[in-house]
């Protein structure tokens, strides 16, 4: 089947999509957007987190057909004007990235957190990131990055 949707502000169309295929597969294999990572395929790891109509979801659990005519924003769509998003900058600066596999999902999820809760408490950060697994960092550097991004975003008018 054909699936048409908006991805990172651009209208995109994928053909020959299998009816049981996930949005994640469409993004990665048909639309050339491999930023969202494919790991657990069961919603456990959060590596495929993308915005669907403004809400972060696991792209592996959205049927491709359910994304028809809807708006998707992936990690590739966060940076703008030749500049990384403050969350992305903070992740690189704080050493919150090691192997990098979980990073796109964490970045999207943290981006959403800071949009909704500009000055989150540590408990709120932990709760927001509870569905994103990282096997390298031990999470401390990730928490540092989210705190730094929050501080920077708050300082930017």
């Amino acid at each position: 089947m054909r699936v048409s949707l908006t991805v990172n502000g651009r209208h995109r169309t994928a053909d020959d999509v299998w009816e049981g295929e996930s949005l994640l597969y469409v993004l990665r294999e048909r639309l050339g957007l491999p930023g969202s990572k494919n790991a657990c395929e069961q919603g456990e790891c959060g590596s495929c987190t993308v915005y669907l109509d403004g809400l972060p979801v696991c792209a592996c659990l959205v049927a491709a057909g359910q994304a028809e005519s809807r708006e998707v924003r992936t990690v590739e769509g966060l940076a703008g004007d030749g500049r990384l998003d403050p969350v992305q900058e903070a992740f690189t600066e704080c050493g919150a990235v090691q192997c990098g596999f979980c990073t796109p999902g964490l970045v999207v999820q943290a981006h959403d957190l800071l949009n909704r809760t500009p000055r989150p408490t540590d408990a709120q950060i932990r709760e927001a990131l509870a569905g994103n697994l990282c096997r390298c960092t031990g999470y401390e550097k990730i928490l540092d990055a989210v705190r730094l991004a929050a501080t920077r975003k708050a300082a930017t008018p």
Partner: protein
Amino acid sequence: MTMDFLRPATWAEALEAKAERPGAVPVQGGTDVMVELNFDVRRPDALLDLNRVAALGEWSAEEDGRLRVGAGVTYARLIAELGDRLPGLAQAARTVGSPQIRNRGTVGGNLGAASPAGDGHPPLLAAGAEIEVESAARGVRMIPAEEFYLGVKRSALEPDELIRAFWTRPAGGPQYFSKVGTRNAMVIAVCSFALALHPAERRAGTGIGSAAPTPRRAVAAEEFLAAELDWDTGRLDPGLPRRFGELAAGAASPIDDVRGTAAYRRHAVAVLARRTLTWAWHDLWAAGPHEGPHDGPRGRVRRPGGPVAPGDPGDPEKPRREAG
């Protein structure tokens, strides 16, 4: 293998599609169905996407005083929009998956999957909810939650029926949901327990999760509370919560599996029942002596569902309560 992707735009179209294709698997948030597809454990001949049926995402307060909550209302919205009126269900919703999962998953999907471990079921049982199902051929049926679950992942839903909504009264007293798992997020319950006090009727409702082939009430435990709780003075005999826990455990019929042993589950159900009763009773009487249930559910009973005060140092049960 080919599969059709059906995308009805209205409820009537959805019912027609289900009548024509009873083998079609309804998909709402996809948090169960897509896992089965991704892992090749299921290949239905059609998926019936319900995301476009806007009516399913709505909820309303009905004339009989109950809430009618559409099957497509997500856990995240349930917490945000109905957490004050359905505190037990909101507590359960907070334990479902992760934020990403709660943005997609629905109580309707939980009911459709009818897993004995589904977190939505025990609060529905404790509150005495009814499930509204419908078919194009026979119209609407209202199924009490306790008659909905028939076996492991089997429900009273007929092949041509779809789940439209669940109906439940706003809480008339304190409600609690408690769940045992290895961590706070992304955990399938080892076992769970829901309690709802119904002060106006001087009784309590219960729901046991993940400790029997289906979610089920602890009927003998409920009868014990109706007979023994002191609704006039609020005095709680120290042995009463323990006995309640024993009776709740007696209603379970758990198995050994990868998540826990039957013996552990039985023990844990007793503990959860005892704790939830202690918390709920404490909340009910926290405002000090009052006229009791004669005041009616909206009387001096503290409004349920607000943030629960952190552990009361005088109450050994309180500090062990997990957040959310």
